[in-house]
Protein backbone atom coordinates (compact mmCIF):
# COMPACT_ATOMS: atom_id res chain seq x y z
CA UNK A 1 0.00 0.00 0.00
CA UNK A 2 1.28 3.48 -0.90
CA UNK A 3 2.68 5.01 2.24
CA UNK A 4 1.57 8.49 1.20
CA UNK A 5 -2.10 7.67 1.30
CA UNK A 6 -4.15 8.35 4.39
CA UNK A 7 -7.82 7.45 4.77
CA UNK A 8 -9.27 10.68 3.43
CA UNK A 9 -6.68 10.93 0.71
CA UNK A 10 -7.30 7.32 -0.22
CA UNK A 11 -11.01 8.00 -0.57
CA UNK A 12 -10.25 11.11 -2.59
CA UNK A 13 -7.95 9.06 -4.78
CA UNK A 14 -10.70 6.53 -5.45
CA UNK A 15 -13.23 9.23 -6.23
CA UNK A 16 -10.82 10.91 -8.61
CA UNK A 17 -10.50 7.68 -10.54
CA UNK A 18 -14.26 7.70 -10.96
CA UNK A 19 -14.25 11.35 -11.94
CA UNK A 20 -11.48 10.72 -14.45
CA UNK A 21 -13.64 8.13 -16.19
CA UNK A 22 -16.75 10.26 -16.36
CA UNK A 23 -15.70 13.91 -16.54
CA UNK A 24 -14.70 15.39 -19.89
CA UNK A 25 -11.90 17.90 -19.71
CA UNK A 26 -11.53 20.83 -22.09
CA UNK A 27 -9.43 20.03 -25.12
CA UNK A 28 -5.84 21.12 -25.39
CA UNK A 29 -5.29 23.82 -27.97
CA UNK A 30 -4.05 22.77 -31.36
CA UNK A 31 -0.79 24.11 -32.79
CA UNK A 32 -2.81 26.41 -35.04
CA UNK A 33 -4.71 27.76 -32.05
CA UNK A 34 -1.49 28.29 -30.14
CA UNK A 35 -0.01 30.19 -33.06
CA UNK A 36 -3.08 32.43 -33.16
CA UNK A 37 -2.37 33.68 -29.63
CA UNK A 38 1.00 35.04 -30.51
CA UNK A 39 0.82 38.46 -32.05
CA UNK A 40 4.06 40.15 -32.84
CA UNK A 41 5.23 41.57 -29.56
CA UNK A 42 5.53 45.35 -29.68
CA UNK A 43 9.00 46.76 -30.11
CA UNK A 44 10.69 47.57 -26.87
CA UNK A 45 9.35 50.88 -25.66
CA UNK A 46 11.53 53.36 -23.82
CA UNK A 47 10.93 53.50 -20.10
CA UNK A 48 8.99 56.62 -19.08
CA UNK A 49 11.20 59.34 -17.72
CA UNK A 50 11.17 59.87 -14.02
CA UNK A 51 8.30 62.04 -12.91
CA UNK A 52 6.01 61.26 -15.83
CA UNK A 53 2.53 60.83 -14.45
CA UNK A 54 -0.52 59.28 -15.92
CA UNK A 55 -2.08 62.70 -16.29
CA UNK A 56 0.92 63.81 -18.32
CA UNK A 57 0.42 60.92 -20.68
CA UNK A 58 -3.19 61.83 -21.17
CA UNK A 59 -2.16 65.37 -21.81
CA UNK A 60 -0.33 64.20 -24.88
CA UNK A 61 -3.65 63.24 -26.33
CA UNK A 62 -5.83 65.79 -24.55
CA UNK A 63 -4.93 68.98 -26.33
CA UNK A 64 -4.44 67.03 -29.52
CA UNK A 65 -8.09 66.07 -29.35
CA UNK A 66 -9.15 69.66 -29.01
CA UNK A 67 -6.57 70.94 -31.44
CA UNK A 68 -7.44 68.33 -34.01
CA UNK A 69 -10.98 69.57 -34.04
CA UNK A 70 -9.70 73.01 -34.91
CA UNK A 71 -7.05 71.90 -37.31
CA UNK A 72 -9.59 69.82 -39.13
CA UNK A 73 -11.19 73.06 -40.16
CA UNK A 74 -7.94 74.15 -41.72
CA UNK A 75 -7.84 70.99 -43.76
CA UNK A 76 -11.40 71.46 -44.82
CA UNK A 77 -10.95 74.98 -46.12
CA UNK A 78 -10.91 75.33 -49.86
CA UNK A 79 -7.39 75.30 -51.22
CA UNK A 80 -5.62 78.62 -51.09
CA UNK A 81 -7.59 80.17 -48.24
CA UNK A 82 -5.50 81.47 -45.38
CA UNK A 83 -5.65 79.41 -42.20
CA UNK A 84 -6.67 82.40 -40.17
CA UNK A 85 -10.16 81.76 -41.48
CA UNK A 86 -10.25 78.56 -39.46
CA UNK A 87 -10.53 80.64 -36.30
CA UNK A 88 -13.31 82.70 -37.83
CA UNK A 89 -15.19 79.62 -38.88
CA UNK A 90 -14.71 78.04 -35.53
CA UNK A 91 -15.93 81.17 -33.78
CA UNK A 92 -19.23 80.73 -35.50
CA UNK A 93 -19.19 77.01 -34.85
CA UNK A 94 -18.70 77.48 -31.15
CA UNK A 95 -22.23 78.73 -31.14
CA UNK A 96 -23.24 75.15 -31.78
CA UNK A 97 -24.56 73.86 -28.53
CA UNK A 98 -25.31 70.47 -27.15
CA UNK A 99 -27.43 69.67 -24.20
CA UNK A 100 -25.56 66.57 -23.21
CA UNK A 101 -22.44 64.55 -23.15
CA UNK A 102 -21.88 60.82 -23.19
CA UNK A 103 -18.55 59.30 -22.32
CA UNK A 104 -17.87 55.60 -22.81
CA UNK A 105 -14.85 53.79 -21.42
CA UNK A 106 -14.36 50.44 -23.03
CA UNK A 107 -11.77 48.01 -21.73
CA UNK A 108 -9.50 50.74 -20.49
CA UNK A 109 -6.66 49.10 -18.59
CA UNK A 110 -3.89 51.25 -17.22
CA UNK A 111 -1.38 50.27 -14.56
CA UNK A 112 -3.32 47.20 -13.56
CA UNK A 113 -6.64 49.02 -13.28
CA UNK A 114 -9.40 47.96 -15.63
CA UNK A 115 -12.22 50.40 -16.16
CA UNK A 116 -15.40 49.99 -18.15
CA UNK A 117 -18.40 52.17 -18.08
CA UNK A 118 -20.26 55.11 -19.33
CA UNK A 119 -21.50 58.42 -18.15
CA UNK A 120 -24.37 60.23 -19.73
CA UNK A 121 -25.15 63.73 -18.55
CA UNK A 122 -27.67 66.27 -19.70
CA UNK A 123 -27.21 69.90 -18.76
CA UNK A 124 -29.67 72.57 -17.83
CA UNK A 125 -27.68 75.04 -19.86
CA UNK A 126 -26.33 73.96 -23.24
CA UNK A 127 -22.61 73.27 -23.41
CA UNK A 128 -20.12 74.05 -26.11
CA UNK A 129 -16.53 73.09 -26.72
CA UNK A 130 -15.50 76.48 -25.40
CA UNK A 131 -17.51 76.14 -22.18
CA UNK A 132 -16.04 72.70 -21.57
CA UNK A 133 -12.58 74.15 -21.87
CA UNK A 134 -13.40 77.07 -19.59
CA UNK A 135 -12.46 75.94 -16.13
CA UNK A 136 -14.19 78.88 -14.57
CA UNK A 137 -17.79 78.05 -15.40
CA UNK A 138 -19.61 74.88 -14.51
CA UNK A 139 -22.69 73.76 -16.34
CA UNK A 140 -25.50 72.58 -14.11
CA UNK A 141 -26.32 68.92 -14.60
CA UNK A 142 -30.00 68.24 -15.08
CA UNK A 143 -29.86 64.47 -15.13
CA UNK A 144 -27.11 61.94 -15.28
CA UNK A 145 -26.38 58.27 -15.23
CA UNK A 146 -23.10 56.66 -14.39
CA UNK A 147 -22.35 52.98 -14.79
CA UNK A 148 -18.77 52.11 -14.04
CA UNK A 149 -16.88 48.95 -13.18
CA UNK A 150 -13.39 49.02 -11.83
CA UNK A 151 -11.08 46.15 -11.11
CA UNK A 152 -7.52 46.57 -9.94
CA UNK A 153 -5.28 43.54 -10.12
CA UNK A 154 -2.22 42.89 -8.06
CA UNK A 155 -0.05 44.76 -10.49
CA UNK A 156 -1.90 47.97 -9.64
CA UNK A 157 -0.59 50.33 -7.01
CA UNK A 158 -0.85 48.79 -3.54
CA UNK A 159 -3.54 51.12 -2.21
CA UNK A 160 -5.99 50.00 -4.82
CA UNK A 161 -4.75 46.53 -5.80
CA UNK A 162 -7.44 43.92 -5.41
CA UNK A 163 -10.36 46.34 -5.74
CA UNK A 164 -13.37 45.07 -7.64
CA UNK A 165 -16.30 47.39 -7.64
CA UNK A 166 -19.31 48.20 -9.76
CA UNK A 167 -21.33 51.36 -9.42
CA UNK A 168 -24.47 52.12 -11.36
CA UNK A 169 -26.27 55.31 -10.51
CA UNK A 170 -28.88 57.69 -11.71
CA UNK A 171 -29.46 61.25 -10.67
CA UNK A 172 -32.15 63.72 -11.47
CA UNK A 173 -33.34 66.88 -9.82
CA UNK A 174 -36.03 64.78 -8.12
CA UNK A 175 -33.96 62.01 -6.71
CA UNK A 176 -31.01 59.72 -6.92
CA UNK A 177 -30.19 56.05 -6.60
CA UNK A 178 -27.05 54.01 -6.65
CA UNK A 179 -26.35 50.32 -7.09
CA UNK A 180 -23.09 49.27 -5.51
CA UNK A 181 -21.45 45.90 -5.75
CA UNK A 182 -18.16 45.39 -4.01
CA UNK A 183 -16.66 42.20 -5.33
CA UNK A 184 -13.48 42.83 -3.40
CA UNK A 185 -11.90 45.63 -1.47
CA UNK A 186 -8.27 46.61 -1.90
CA UNK A 187 -6.22 43.88 -0.28
CA UNK A 188 -4.08 46.31 1.68
CA UNK A 189 -7.12 48.09 3.09
CA UNK A 190 -8.76 44.83 4.05
CA UNK A 191 -5.60 43.65 5.75
CA UNK A 192 -5.44 46.85 7.77
CA UNK A 193 -9.17 46.83 8.57
CA UNK A 194 -10.46 43.25 8.57
CA UNK A 195 -13.83 44.46 9.83
CA UNK A 196 -14.43 45.86 6.37
CA UNK A 197 -14.89 42.26 5.34
CA UNK A 198 -18.41 42.63 6.67
CA UNK A 199 -19.00 45.50 4.31
CA UNK A 200 -17.62 43.45 1.48
CA UNK A 201 -19.98 40.66 2.37
CA UNK A 202 -22.93 43.02 2.58
CA UNK A 203 -22.23 44.55 -0.80
CA UNK A 204 -20.86 41.40 -2.33
CA UNK A 205 -23.87 40.71 -4.51
CA UNK A 206 -24.89 44.30 -4.79
CA UNK A 207 -27.16 46.65 -2.93
CA UNK A 208 -29.50 49.21 -4.42
CA UNK A 209 -29.26 52.40 -2.41
CA UNK A 210 -32.19 54.74 -2.68
CA UNK A 211 -30.88 58.20 -1.93
CA UNK A 212 -34.12 60.04 -2.53
CA UNK A 213 -33.56 63.73 -2.85
CA UNK A 214 -30.62 63.72 -0.49
CA UNK A 215 -27.98 64.07 -3.13
CA UNK A 216 -27.01 67.37 -4.65
CA UNK A 217 -26.51 66.63 -8.33
CA UNK A 218 -23.76 69.15 -8.47
CA UNK A 219 -21.79 67.19 -5.91
CA UNK A 220 -21.98 63.93 -7.84
CA UNK A 221 -21.12 64.83 -11.35
CA UNK A 222 -19.87 68.06 -12.68
CA UNK A 223 -18.39 68.85 -16.01
CA UNK A 224 -16.24 71.91 -16.40
CA UNK A 225 -14.68 73.61 -13.45
CA UNK A 226 -13.50 71.89 -10.34
CA UNK A 227 -14.52 68.34 -9.75
CA UNK A 228 -16.59 67.35 -6.76
CA UNK A 229 -15.31 66.24 -3.44
CA UNK A 230 -11.68 66.96 -4.01
CA UNK A 231 -9.38 69.91 -3.61
CA UNK A 232 -10.03 72.73 -5.98
CA UNK A 233 -7.42 72.74 -8.68
CA UNK A 234 -7.03 76.40 -9.26
CA UNK A 235 -4.24 75.93 -11.70
CA UNK A 236 -6.04 73.62 -14.05
CA UNK A 237 -8.03 75.52 -16.56
CA UNK A 238 -8.64 72.54 -18.74
CA UNK A 239 -11.57 70.21 -18.97
CA UNK A 240 -11.62 67.59 -16.33
CA UNK A 241 -14.28 64.98 -16.21
CA UNK A 242 -13.98 62.94 -13.06
CA UNK A 243 -15.79 59.80 -12.32
CA UNK A 244 -16.22 59.76 -8.58
CA UNK A 245 -17.82 56.90 -6.70
CA UNK A 246 -17.81 57.57 -3.02
CA UNK A 247 -18.72 54.60 -0.98
CA UNK A 248 -18.82 55.66 2.60
CA UNK A 249 -19.28 52.86 5.02
CA UNK A 250 -19.44 53.13 8.72
CA UNK A 251 -19.23 50.67 11.49
CA UNK A 252 -22.36 50.20 13.53
CA UNK A 253 -20.53 51.07 16.67
CA UNK A 254 -19.05 54.29 15.41
CA UNK A 255 -18.38 56.49 18.35
CA UNK A 256 -16.16 59.25 17.16
CA UNK A 257 -16.52 62.08 14.77
CA UNK A 258 -17.92 61.13 11.37
CA UNK A 259 -14.98 62.87 9.82
CA UNK A 260 -12.53 60.64 11.58
CA UNK A 261 -12.33 57.80 9.13
CA UNK A 262 -9.49 56.11 10.94
CA UNK A 263 -11.67 55.46 13.95
CA UNK A 264 -14.97 54.74 12.31
CA UNK A 265 -13.55 52.33 9.78
CA UNK A 266 -15.22 54.24 7.00
CA UNK A 267 -13.85 53.88 3.56
CA UNK A 268 -14.05 56.23 0.72
CA UNK A 269 -13.09 55.10 -2.73
CA UNK A 270 -12.23 57.83 -5.12
CA UNK A 271 -11.65 56.66 -8.59
CA UNK A 272 -8.88 59.10 -9.28
CA UNK A 273 -7.16 57.04 -11.94
CA UNK A 274 -10.19 57.61 -14.09
CA UNK A 275 -9.57 61.32 -14.28
CA UNK A 276 -9.52 62.04 -17.96
CA UNK A 277 -8.16 65.37 -18.81
CA UNK A 278 -9.45 66.57 -22.08
CA UNK A 279 -7.71 69.86 -21.92
CA UNK A 280 -4.66 71.21 -20.25
CA UNK A 281 -2.74 69.86 -17.34
CA UNK A 282 -0.28 71.56 -15.11
CA UNK A 283 2.18 68.72 -15.49
CA UNK A 284 4.96 69.29 -17.96
CA UNK A 285 3.14 71.78 -20.19
CA UNK A 286 4.26 75.17 -21.25
CA UNK A 287 2.13 78.20 -20.37
CA UNK A 288 2.47 79.40 -23.93
CA UNK A 289 0.91 76.31 -25.41
CA UNK A 290 -1.85 76.42 -22.85
CA UNK A 291 -2.60 79.97 -23.87
CA UNK A 292 -2.63 78.98 -27.50
CA UNK A 293 -5.03 76.18 -26.85
CA UNK A 294 -7.39 78.38 -24.85
CA UNK A 295 -7.36 81.01 -27.54
CA UNK A 296 -8.09 78.52 -30.24
CA UNK A 297 -10.94 76.97 -28.37
CA UNK A 298 -12.34 80.38 -27.57
CA UNK A 299 -12.27 81.16 -31.26
CA UNK A 300 -9.95 84.15 -31.10
CA UNK A 301 -6.64 82.60 -31.97
CA UNK A 302 -4.24 84.49 -34.19
CA UNK A 303 -2.72 83.10 -37.34
CA UNK A 304 0.54 82.47 -35.52
CA UNK A 305 -1.22 80.61 -32.71
CA UNK A 306 -2.96 78.35 -35.16
CA UNK A 307 0.33 77.64 -36.86
CA UNK A 308 1.81 76.73 -33.48
CA UNK A 309 -1.03 74.32 -32.83
CA UNK A 310 -0.63 72.69 -36.21
CA UNK A 311 3.04 72.20 -35.44
CA UNK A 312 2.23 70.60 -32.08
CA UNK A 313 -0.28 68.29 -33.70
CA UNK A 314 2.12 67.25 -36.40
CA UNK A 315 4.81 66.68 -33.80
CA UNK A 316 2.60 64.58 -31.56
CA UNK A 317 0.88 62.60 -34.26
CA UNK A 318 2.97 61.04 -36.95
CA UNK A 319 0.04 60.82 -39.31
CA UNK A 320 -3.02 63.04 -39.71
CA UNK A 321 -5.62 62.52 -42.40
CA UNK A 322 -9.23 63.39 -43.04
CA UNK A 323 -11.81 61.20 -44.66
CA UNK A 324 -15.25 62.17 -45.80
CA UNK A 325 -17.61 59.41 -44.81
CA UNK A 326 -20.68 60.98 -46.35
CA UNK A 327 -21.55 64.45 -47.62
CA UNK A 328 -21.01 66.85 -44.74
CA UNK A 329 -19.50 64.27 -42.38
CA UNK A 330 -15.74 64.32 -42.04
CA UNK A 331 -13.54 62.29 -39.76
CA UNK A 332 -10.07 63.37 -38.79
CA UNK A 333 -7.70 60.55 -37.89
CA UNK A 334 -4.55 61.29 -35.93
CA UNK A 335 -2.16 58.45 -35.22
CA UNK A 336 1.50 57.63 -34.91
CA UNK A 337 1.84 59.05 -31.43
CA UNK A 338 4.90 58.51 -29.35
CA UNK A 339 4.10 55.29 -27.50
CA UNK A 340 4.86 54.77 -23.84
CA UNK A 341 4.63 51.77 -21.56
CA UNK A 342 1.19 52.22 -20.16
CA UNK A 343 -1.28 54.37 -22.05
CA UNK A 344 -0.31 55.28 -25.57
CA UNK A 345 0.33 52.40 -27.94
CA UNK A 346 1.95 52.45 -31.36
CA UNK A 347 -1.49 52.04 -32.92
CA UNK A 348 -3.32 54.51 -30.67
CA UNK A 349 -5.51 56.78 -32.72
CA UNK A 350 -7.67 59.83 -32.21
CA UNK A 351 -10.77 60.10 -34.40
CA UNK A 352 -12.76 63.29 -34.53
CA UNK A 353 -16.11 63.22 -36.26
CA UNK A 354 -17.06 66.61 -37.54
CA UNK A 355 -20.34 67.44 -39.25
CA UNK A 356 -20.71 70.59 -41.26
CA UNK A 357 -23.24 72.87 -39.70
CA UNK A 358 -23.14 71.02 -36.39
CA UNK A 359 -19.52 70.80 -35.39
CA UNK A 360 -17.66 68.08 -33.58
CA UNK A 361 -20.10 65.31 -32.77
CA UNK A 362 -17.86 62.65 -31.42
CA UNK A 363 -14.30 61.96 -30.37
CA UNK A 364 -12.86 58.47 -30.17
CA UNK A 365 -9.50 57.60 -28.74
CA UNK A 366 -8.76 54.03 -29.71
CA UNK A 367 -6.19 51.45 -28.74
CA UNK A 368 -5.08 52.95 -25.46
CA UNK A 369 -4.01 51.27 -22.30
CA UNK A 370 -2.53 47.84 -22.01
CA UNK A 371 -5.71 46.18 -23.30
CA UNK A 372 -6.08 48.40 -26.36
CA UNK A 373 -9.21 49.99 -24.97
CA UNK A 374 -11.21 52.94 -26.17
CA UNK A 375 -12.62 56.19 -24.90
CA UNK A 376 -15.56 57.71 -26.72
CA UNK A 377 -16.99 61.14 -26.09
CA UNK A 378 -20.23 62.03 -27.80
CA UNK A 379 -21.93 65.38 -27.77
CA UNK A 380 -25.61 64.63 -27.78
CA UNK A 381 -29.03 66.09 -27.15
CA UNK A 382 -30.41 62.72 -26.10
CA UNK A 383 -32.51 62.70 -22.98
CA UNK A 384 -31.17 60.83 -19.99
CA UNK A 385 -33.39 58.11 -18.59
CA UNK A 386 -31.98 58.21 -15.09
CA UNK A 387 -34.48 55.77 -13.59
CA UNK A 388 -34.25 52.92 -16.07
CA UNK A 389 -31.27 51.40 -14.33
CA UNK A 390 -33.01 51.49 -10.96
CA UNK A 391 -35.94 49.54 -12.34
CA UNK A 392 -33.55 46.98 -13.74
CA UNK A 393 -31.94 46.34 -10.36
CA UNK A 394 -35.29 46.29 -8.61
CA UNK A 395 -36.55 43.67 -11.03
CA UNK A 396 -33.39 41.68 -10.43
CA UNK A 397 -34.40 41.52 -6.78
CA UNK A 398 -31.31 43.07 -5.24
CA UNK A 399 -31.70 44.26 -1.65
CA UNK A 400 -32.76 47.86 -1.35
CA UNK A 401 -31.42 50.30 1.20
CA UNK A 402 -33.83 53.20 1.65
CA UNK A 403 -31.56 55.85 3.06
CA UNK A 404 -34.13 58.64 3.47
CA UNK A 405 -36.45 56.17 5.19
CA UNK A 406 -33.70 55.01 7.50
CA UNK A 407 -32.81 58.54 8.37
CA UNK A 408 -36.42 59.38 9.16
CA UNK A 409 -36.62 56.31 11.32
CA UNK A 410 -33.43 57.26 13.07
CA UNK A 411 -34.66 60.77 13.63
CA UNK A 412 -37.94 59.42 15.00
CA UNK A 413 -36.15 57.08 17.40
CA UNK A 414 -33.95 59.89 18.57
CA UNK A 415 -36.89 61.99 19.62
CA UNK A 416 -37.44 62.11 23.37
Amino acid at each position, binding site marked *: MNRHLQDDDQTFDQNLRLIGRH*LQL*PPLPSDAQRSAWYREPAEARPQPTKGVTMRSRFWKIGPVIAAAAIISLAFLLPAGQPRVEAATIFKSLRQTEWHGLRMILDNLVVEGIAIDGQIHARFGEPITLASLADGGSASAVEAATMDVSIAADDTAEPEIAGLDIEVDSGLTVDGAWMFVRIGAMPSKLLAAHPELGLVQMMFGKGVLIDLGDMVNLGSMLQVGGDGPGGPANAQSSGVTTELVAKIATERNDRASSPDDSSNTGSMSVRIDPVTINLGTDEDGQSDELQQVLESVLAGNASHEQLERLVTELEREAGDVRIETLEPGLHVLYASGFDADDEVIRPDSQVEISYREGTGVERIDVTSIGSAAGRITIEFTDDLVDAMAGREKWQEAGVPVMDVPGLMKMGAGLAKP
Partner: protein
Amino acid sequence: MSGTAAPVPRTAAQLPENPVESAFGRFGDALYRYVFVRTGGNADLSADVMQQVWVQACGADLGRIVEDDRERWLRRVAKNVLITHWRTARRRPQSVPLVDVELAAALSNRLATEEIPPTLLTRKEVRDQLLLAITQLSTDDQQVIVGHYFSGHSHALLADELGLSVRAVEGRLYRARASLRAALLHLDG
Protein backbone atom coordinates in the same frame (compact mmCIF):
# COMPACT_ATOMS: atom_id res chain seq x y z
CA MET B 1 -14.10 15.88 -27.72
CA SER B 2 -10.66 14.68 -26.76
CA GLY B 3 -9.87 16.24 -23.46
CA THR B 4 -7.86 13.74 -21.55
CA ALA B 5 -4.36 14.63 -22.69
CA ALA B 6 -2.14 16.14 -20.06
CA PRO B 7 -0.31 19.35 -20.92
CA VAL B 8 2.89 18.40 -22.76
CA PRO B 9 5.88 19.10 -20.56
CA ARG B 10 8.78 20.93 -22.16
CA THR B 11 12.26 21.01 -20.77
CA ALA B 12 14.02 24.25 -20.00
CA ALA B 13 16.25 23.70 -23.02
CA GLN B 14 13.22 23.57 -25.28
CA LEU B 15 11.74 26.83 -24.02
CA PRO B 16 12.57 30.08 -25.84
CA GLU B 17 14.57 32.73 -24.06
CA ASN B 18 11.93 35.44 -24.38
CA PRO B 19 10.14 35.38 -21.01
CA VAL B 20 6.68 35.79 -22.54
CA GLU B 21 7.18 33.03 -25.07
CA SER B 22 8.74 30.90 -22.39
CA ALA B 23 5.83 31.48 -20.02
CA PHE B 24 3.29 30.68 -22.70
CA GLY B 25 5.23 27.64 -23.74
CA ARG B 26 5.26 26.33 -20.21
CA PHE B 27 1.87 27.47 -18.91
CA GLY B 28 -0.15 28.19 -22.05
CA ASP B 29 -2.00 24.89 -22.33
CA ALA B 30 -3.19 24.90 -18.75
CA LEU B 31 -4.07 28.57 -19.06
CA TYR B 32 -6.10 27.81 -22.16
CA ARG B 33 -8.04 25.16 -20.29
CA TYR B 34 -8.61 27.61 -17.44
CA VAL B 35 -10.03 30.12 -19.89
CA PHE B 36 -11.94 27.57 -21.95
CA VAL B 37 -13.93 26.37 -18.96
CA ARG B 38 -14.73 29.90 -17.87
CA THR B 39 -16.00 30.88 -21.29
CA GLY B 40 -18.40 27.94 -21.30
CA GLY B 41 -16.43 26.15 -23.98
CA ASN B 42 -16.37 29.06 -26.42
CA ALA B 43 -13.24 28.40 -28.47
CA ASP B 44 -13.33 31.74 -30.30
CA LEU B 45 -13.71 33.73 -27.11
CA SER B 46 -11.03 31.63 -25.45
CA ALA B 47 -8.64 32.37 -28.29
CA ASP B 48 -9.47 36.04 -28.02
CA VAL B 49 -8.78 36.01 -24.30
CA MET B 50 -5.48 34.20 -24.84
CA GLN B 51 -4.48 36.82 -27.38
CA GLN B 52 -5.28 39.60 -24.98
CA VAL B 53 -3.27 37.91 -22.26
CA TRP B 54 -0.39 37.54 -24.68
CA VAL B 55 -0.57 41.22 -25.62
CA GLN B 56 -0.65 42.29 -21.97
CA ALA B 57 2.23 39.99 -21.15
CA CYS B 58 4.24 41.52 -23.98
CA GLY B 59 3.42 44.99 -22.69
CA ALA B 60 4.41 44.13 -19.13
CA ASP B 61 7.93 43.35 -18.08
CA LEU B 62 7.40 39.68 -17.39
CA GLY B 63 11.09 39.20 -16.88
CA ARG B 64 10.91 41.09 -13.60
CA ILE B 65 8.47 38.56 -12.19
CA VAL B 66 9.97 35.52 -10.53
CA GLU B 67 9.46 32.57 -12.83
CA ASP B 68 7.39 30.63 -10.34
CA ASP B 69 5.00 33.55 -10.03
CA ARG B 70 4.52 34.02 -13.77
CA GLU B 71 1.78 31.44 -14.06
CA ARG B 72 -0.17 33.11 -11.31
CA TRP B 73 0.35 36.47 -13.03
CA LEU B 74 -0.93 35.12 -16.33
CA ARG B 75 -3.96 33.59 -14.63
CA ARG B 76 -4.69 36.88 -12.95
CA VAL B 77 -4.54 38.76 -16.23
CA ALA B 78 -6.78 36.16 -17.88
CA LYS B 79 -9.26 36.45 -15.05
CA ASN B 80 -9.35 40.24 -15.38
CA VAL B 81 -9.85 39.97 -19.12
CA LEU B 82 -12.75 37.63 -18.53
CA ILE B 83 -14.26 39.88 -15.88
CA THR B 84 -14.07 42.80 -18.29
CA HIS B 85 -15.63 40.75 -21.05
CA TRP B 86 -18.57 39.64 -18.97
CA ARG B 87 -19.16 43.15 -17.72
CA THR B 88 -19.31 44.41 -21.25
CA ALA B 89 -21.49 41.55 -22.35
CA ARG B 90 -23.76 42.13 -19.34
CA ARG B 91 -25.06 38.60 -19.67
CA ARG B 92 -23.28 35.29 -19.33
CA PRO B 93 -24.50 32.38 -21.42
CA GLN B 94 -25.93 29.53 -19.43
CA SER B 95 -23.07 27.31 -20.53
CA VAL B 96 -20.62 29.38 -18.51
CA PRO B 97 -20.09 27.66 -15.16
CA LEU B 98 -20.72 29.73 -12.08
CA VAL B 99 -19.02 29.21 -8.77
CA ASP B 100 -21.30 27.61 -6.19
CA VAL B 101 -19.38 28.08 -2.98
CA GLU B 102 -21.58 25.80 -0.88
CA LEU B 103 -21.69 23.00 -3.40
CA ALA B 104 -17.96 23.15 -4.00
CA ALA B 105 -17.20 23.04 -0.28
CA ALA B 106 -19.56 20.12 0.14
CA LEU B 107 -17.87 18.35 -2.74
CA SER B 108 -14.45 18.91 -1.26
CA ASN B 109 -15.56 17.29 1.96
CA ARG B 110 -17.57 14.52 0.38
CA LEU B 111 -14.86 13.46 -2.04
CA ALA B 112 -12.53 12.86 0.89
CA THR B 113 -14.96 11.09 3.20
CA GLU B 114 -17.19 8.85 1.11
CA GLU B 115 -17.33 7.06 -2.17
CA ILE B 116 -19.45 9.17 -4.48
CA PRO B 117 -22.02 7.56 -6.76
CA PRO B 118 -21.45 7.92 -10.51
CA THR B 119 -24.87 9.55 -10.77
CA LEU B 120 -23.51 12.57 -8.92
CA LEU B 121 -21.42 13.37 -11.96
CA THR B 122 -24.47 13.60 -14.17
CA ARG B 123 -25.35 16.89 -12.50
CA LYS B 124 -24.04 19.85 -14.51
CA GLU B 125 -23.43 21.98 -11.46
CA VAL B 126 -21.22 19.27 -9.94
CA ARG B 127 -19.23 18.87 -13.14
CA ASP B 128 -18.88 22.66 -13.34
CA GLN B 129 -17.36 22.93 -9.87
CA LEU B 130 -14.95 20.10 -10.62
CA LEU B 131 -13.89 21.61 -13.93
CA LEU B 132 -13.39 25.01 -12.33
CA ALA B 133 -11.25 23.43 -9.63
CA ILE B 134 -9.17 21.20 -11.90
CA THR B 135 -8.42 23.99 -14.36
CA GLN B 136 -7.52 26.25 -11.45
CA LEU B 137 -4.64 23.98 -10.54
CA SER B 138 -1.14 24.97 -11.51
CA THR B 139 0.36 23.47 -14.64
CA ASP B 140 2.49 21.07 -12.63
CA ASP B 141 -0.43 19.83 -10.55
CA GLN B 142 -2.63 19.48 -13.61
CA GLN B 143 0.02 17.42 -15.34
CA VAL B 144 -0.05 14.70 -12.72
CA ILE B 145 -3.79 14.83 -11.99
CA VAL B 146 -4.79 14.71 -15.63
CA GLY B 147 -2.05 12.26 -16.55
CA HIS B 148 -2.90 9.78 -13.79
CA TYR B 149 -6.67 10.05 -13.41
CA PHE B 150 -7.82 11.13 -16.85
CA SER B 151 -5.22 9.62 -19.14
CA GLY B 152 -4.81 6.55 -16.95
CA HIS B 153 -1.02 6.72 -16.79
CA SER B 154 0.60 4.65 -14.09
CA HIS B 155 3.03 6.13 -11.61
CA ALA B 156 5.87 4.51 -13.49
CA LEU B 157 4.79 5.93 -16.83
CA LEU B 158 4.31 9.37 -15.35
CA ALA B 159 7.74 9.13 -13.77
CA ASP B 160 9.20 8.31 -17.15
CA GLU B 161 7.36 11.20 -18.87
CA LEU B 162 8.33 13.75 -16.26
CA GLY B 163 11.86 12.52 -15.68
CA LEU B 164 11.19 11.81 -12.02
CA SER B 165 11.34 8.87 -9.68
CA VAL B 166 8.17 6.91 -8.94
CA ARG B 167 8.35 8.09 -5.36
CA ALA B 168 8.57 11.71 -6.51
CA VAL B 169 5.50 11.18 -8.69
CA GLU B 170 3.59 9.74 -5.75
CA GLY B 171 4.54 12.78 -3.71
CA ARG B 172 3.45 15.13 -6.46
CA LEU B 173 0.14 13.38 -6.79
CA TYR B 174 -0.45 13.60 -3.08
CA ARG B 175 0.21 17.32 -3.11
CA ALA B 176 -1.88 17.81 -6.25
CA ARG B 177 -4.83 16.08 -4.64
CA ALA B 178 -4.49 18.38 -1.65
CA SER B 179 -4.36 21.36 -4.01
CA LEU B 180 -7.51 20.16 -5.74
CA ARG B 181 -9.37 19.87 -2.45
CA ALA B 182 -8.20 23.37 -1.53
CA ALA B 183 -9.21 24.69 -4.96
CA LEU B 184 -12.75 23.47 -4.39
CA LEU B 185 -12.82 25.56 -1.24
CA HIS B 186 -11.54 28.69 -3.00
CA LEU B 187 -12.91 28.55 -6.50
CA ASP B 188 -11.96 31.16 -9.05
CA GLY B 189 -14.99 31.81 -11.23
